[in-house]
């Protein structure tokens, strides 16, 4: 009976206890750090030095190896924030709010990288640094959503209030995600459609896909590593706050 309830407890509530999460995080941290460094270095070597130049874009297309993985992370992290915000809002899961809060700056950084590298790719290929195309504009909106989320989350003295207010922003802003995803199909403008999709064969040679996928895996591992660092930092901040309150109150 006891084991049964214990098993059922694993899942959503497994990490509700910060102490248990910290133990788990310490265990996996070295592994995600190693995977991040190994995959990113391998992707850089393959993408910049090994893979041949594109027949139309020459060497300029190599920007894809940072641009596409960064854009992918920007979207994925926003989805994680929206889901974690929903979990924090509905079930008041204590770690979910912290996951959403800790993920936001990482997502904002990837969105920024996506916009800058896209601009550096646009100038030689399209002849312009910037165009108010649907994909690019919706990515800029995503950056503002991230910044708004971060600002709103820290705008309250009570972190619970900040978490609830920013959770609403994250959930409303999630409308933007399908807009970004399908913008290249809905509006036929400058930005090219997806290179790799689940439904079609990729429009890229297999040798060029390897560095792209390696970089995606490397970025995911980087995200997990920085997320663990930031979560530990948030948990420490919460303990500091509680200790201070206890000292003032007691």
């Amino acid at each position, binding site marked *: 009976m*006891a084991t049964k309830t*214990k098993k059922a407890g694993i899942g959503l509530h497994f990490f509700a*206890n*910060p*102490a*248990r999460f910290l133990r788990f995080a310490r265990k996996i941290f070295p592994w995600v750090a190693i995977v991040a460094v190994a995959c990113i270095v391998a992707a*850089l070597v393959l993408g*910049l*030095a090994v893979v041949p*130049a594109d027949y139309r874009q*020459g*060497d*300029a297309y*190599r*920007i894809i190896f*940072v*641009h596409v993985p*960064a854009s992918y992370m920007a979207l994925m992290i926003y989805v994680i924030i929206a889901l974690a915000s929903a979990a924090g809002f509905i079930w008041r899961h204590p770690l979910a709010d912290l996951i959403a809060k800790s993920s936001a*700056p*990482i997502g904002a*950084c990837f969105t*920024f*990288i996506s916009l*800058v*590298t896209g601009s*550096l*790719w646009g*100038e*030689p290929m399209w002849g312009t640094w910037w165009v108010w195309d649907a994909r690019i504009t919706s990515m800029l909106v995503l950056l503002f959503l991230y910044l708004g989320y971060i600002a709103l989350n820290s705008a309250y003295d009570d972190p619970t209030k900040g978490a609830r207010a920013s959770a609403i922003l994250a959930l409303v802003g999630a409308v933007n995600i399908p807009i970004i995803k399908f913008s290249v199909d809905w509006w036929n403008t400058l930005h090219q459609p997806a290179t790799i999709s689940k439904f079609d064969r990729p429009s890229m040679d297999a040798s060029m896909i390897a560095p792209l996928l390696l970089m995606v895996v490397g970025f995911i591992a*980087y995200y997990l*590593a*920085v997320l663990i*660092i*930031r979560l*530990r*930092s948030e948990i*420490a*901040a919460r*303990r*500091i706050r*509680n*200790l*201070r309150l*206890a*000292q003032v109150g007691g």
Partner: protein
Amino acid sequence: MSFFEMGGYAAYIWPAFGVGALVLIGLLVISLRRLKSREAALLRLEAAGGGRRRRGRGDGDEEDAETEKEEASP
């Protein structure tokens, strides 16, 4: 043509990868520094708490004790 010239696109490729590296390493360093300073602050606060607890962790203590008990039971 040399590797660093990137077929004439060096002015675009190296800044793109440079910005990526700079932002990601910067975020990592900021996050690590913040963790270090908060953990140090936490240790100071706990030390100032005056050994009331073996390894005092504020309100997390009850939760910790509960977990330990739960995990110890077969």
